[in-house]
């Protein structure tokens, strides 16, 4: 299936998210769309998927112009999109989610779909239990499920928005193999990403977007420096790792077991010290996210003890941990981190709640302006947070962290961010460590963990199986540990 986009435009008020974009995807190929945050990638793909309407331009499939007004219309034409934030039904089981939108007629034909599900699962090497409620899956597992559903419903054009975000290296390889196979079967695959290595490894052709326009195109083999230049104008320098010395222990877990994720956390003993950045690695849902939630008081351990600054905090709630100087930031920004419908200034007023009965709107706006300037957020005090791009939302969230926390717990803090934003985030987080905060974060990116951490903890099947300094290990060894081989 050949796809051609011609002169696609989309305006949001005065903002030109897409400004006359031309794009050709040859059948049987994998086409990469590169660009930093706010370049217009997501908008373009949402137009193709029927999720938002174009202001101008045409979409051609196999040379014929097509038009549709909603995602169902796109699905009927065989265009399927895997969104960055999974669109699924959390209270329903994996199986029911898989069947949703696929079942026709009166009968559910559960057995047929169960068979199809396990076949697909097997061919892609995913290990999803069909009877688990989706609410208990991690973001990565939910993305896997969405992908399975798209494939099963017979999509001929597959759009993947940041598909490698949140899945492990091993799973990424499996996914890539599957995508190559699918492209081989004459489907068109469009991969939207900001990760150069992924796009380079997988794609036959790349289109780079910048500020809503096409900045350049390239076919295999790719010239990395040239691609970077197209994306950013110039190549960004990597963030330096400052030599830090760890101080006294801030957080201590002793034999902690807790539920959550795919495996829960099993019998974990670990200490985290002042001024130290610790990266938690492992397959999505292997216990690292449970550790972060136990350490922030969101999940109560069923066994073991948790202490902060030498004080026993076992069984205490989130607010008690907050008071003790523990700050937690979830991975899902607009779902859990920010309050949709509220402006930046309103967020500031909530963040800096004093004891006064009335809201101090003047100081809230002042603080909003300060944060916007200091954290380079592209917005105004009265902008609703959902109008900001992912990178700007993350910067805003970071601005809400307390100034001098004892312990900073971050769930995948750079999820879906472009390289420049990643560097910005880590420059900022390193400053926390430099002033004596213990920073603990989870990330599916081994490179990121190796780049910024003073210590790496690897989780497998709910257990802490490796505790290493990055100088004394490498990506290969860590990758083996993640797969369970120590």
């Amino acid at each position, binding site marked *: 299936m050949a796809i051609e986009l011609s002169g696609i435009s989309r305006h949001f008020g005065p903002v030109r998210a897409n400004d006359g974009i031309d794009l050709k995807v040859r059948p049987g190929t994998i086409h990469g769309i590169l660009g930093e945050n706010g370049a217009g990638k997501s908008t373009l793909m949402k137009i193709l998927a029927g999720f938002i309407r174009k202001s101008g331009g045409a979409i051609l499939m196999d040379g014929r112009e097509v038009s549709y007004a909603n995602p169902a219309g796109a699905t009927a034409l065989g265009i399927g999109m895997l969104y960055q934030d999974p669109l699924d039904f959390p209270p329903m089981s994996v199986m029911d989610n898989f069947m949703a939108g696929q079942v026709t007629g009166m009968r559910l034909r559960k057995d047929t779909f169960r068979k199809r599900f396990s076949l697909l699962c097997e061919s892609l090497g995913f290990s999803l239990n069909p009877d688990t409620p989706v609410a208990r899956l991690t973001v990565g597992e939910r993305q896997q499920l969405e992908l399975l559903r798209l494939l099963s419903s017979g999509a001929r054009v597959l759009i993947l928005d940041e598909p490698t975000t949140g899945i492990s290296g091993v799973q990424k390889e499996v996914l890539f193999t599957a995508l190559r196979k699918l492209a081989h079967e004459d489907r068109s695959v469009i991969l939207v990403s900001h990760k150069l290595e992924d796009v380079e490894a997988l794609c036959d052709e790349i289109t780079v977007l910048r500020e809503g326009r096409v900045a350049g195109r390239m076919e295999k083999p790719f010239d990395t420096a040239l691609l970077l230049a197209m994306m950013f104008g110039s190549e960004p320098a990597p963030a330096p790792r400052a030599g830090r010395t760890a101080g006294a222990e801030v957080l201590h877990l002793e034999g902690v077991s807790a539920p959550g994720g795919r495996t829960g956390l099993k019998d974990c003993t670990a200490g985290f010290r002042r001024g130290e950045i610790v990266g938690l690695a492992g397959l999505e849902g292997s216990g690292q996210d449970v550790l972060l939630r136990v350490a922030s008081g969101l999940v109560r351990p069923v066994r073991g003890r948790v202490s902060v600054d030498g004080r026993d905090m076992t069984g205490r709630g989130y607010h008690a941990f907050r008071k003790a100087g523990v700050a937690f930031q979830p991975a899902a920004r607009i779902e*859990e981190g*920010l*309050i949709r*419908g509220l402006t930046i200034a309103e967020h500031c007023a*909530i963040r800096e709640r004093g004891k006064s009965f009335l809201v101090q709107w003047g100081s809230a706006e002042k603080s909003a302006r300060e944060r916007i300037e200091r954290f380079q957020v592209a917005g105004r005090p009265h902008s609703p947070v959902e109008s900001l791009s992912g990178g700007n939302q993350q910067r805003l969230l970071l601005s809400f962290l307390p100034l001098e926390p004892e312990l900073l717990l971050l769930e995948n803090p750079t999820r879906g961010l472009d390289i420049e934003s990643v560097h910005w985030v880590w420059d900022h987080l390193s400053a926390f460590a430099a002033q004596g905060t213990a920073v603990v974060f989870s990330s599916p990116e081994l490179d990121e963990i190796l780049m910024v951490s003073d210590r790496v903890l690897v989780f497998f099947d709910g257990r802490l199986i490796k505790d290493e300094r990055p100088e004394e290990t490498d990506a290969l060894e860590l990758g083996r540990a993640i797969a369970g081989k120590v």
Partner: protein
Amino acid sequence: MSLELAAAAAVVLAFTTMVLLFAGAPPLETFRQIVQGSLGSWIKLTYVIKVWIPLTLASCGLLYTFRIGLWNIGVEGQVMAGAVLTTFILRSGVESGHPGLVLFAGLLAGIAGGAFWAILAGYLKTRGGVHEIFAGLGLNFVAQGMVLWLIFGPWKQPGIASMSGTETFPDALWLPYIEHLRISPAGIGMALLAVVLTAAMLRYTRFGLYLKAIGSNEKAAFFFGLRPRTTMILAMICAGGFAGLAGGFQVAGVYHRLIPAISSGYGYLALLVVLLSNFNVWVTPLVAFFFAALNVGSIQLPMALQLDSSLSGVIQGTLVLAALAVHALRTRIRRAS
């Protein structure tokens, strides 16, 4: 907004005309009767205001719960609970010799009664995991049962219990009113104060901001350090307090006794008022006035045209549905263009 209301009104007019034609009634005459019956004379206007006061009070309360994302359908029972406690205090104070004080205490008790009834629903929601609609609906039935039991049991009139309610209070325990107009300045004052207070609470206080934050994203608000469950209980207390005051006004200012239909369905009606106001606190009293006028205006329909007075309910219901439909339609058109 005004265009939407006009379009909704047109839809309602068309629909109601159809209903009337179907029922064999002359539409123009019916509408004339409704206007005449509510705004035709000063006396009739005072009847409307008497309905407007409790309706506005209950609507103001609902603005708090809607803001935090709760459907406080238990507002009806909260009105009744308030009425019961007010009756209790007024009954106990008949011979106290300080009628002013007793009246004041009675209204305060009304607030407390409504708030208590709301707390029950609030706890069922936040601790028991019972959806507030089911909790509220259940408590409405309990409150209605309690009212009937009191009227036919412990508080029955000397001699014989009757559907006409408990014994009427002495004049001294009636909320003061202007002699010929029979409207209570205190009641109007309470309703206006409720509107201004609610507007200020939602716009300027931290509590108001927290309601909005939790109503928009409970999880994120929790991560920001807010306490959704506690705040929900507080919102329920506000809603129940205003509803209870409405019930207290029904007892002290309208019926001067407890009657079986003491809430007059104003709680449910207030839900419609707030929906039609699009949760705007300044529009709420206007819509409440319109609904009150419809209610009062349709009272004489049975006599004048042999029509059932429930026609006002049909108009109110279709008006809200039409307003929601028109609003959705306009949003869709705006998005498409």
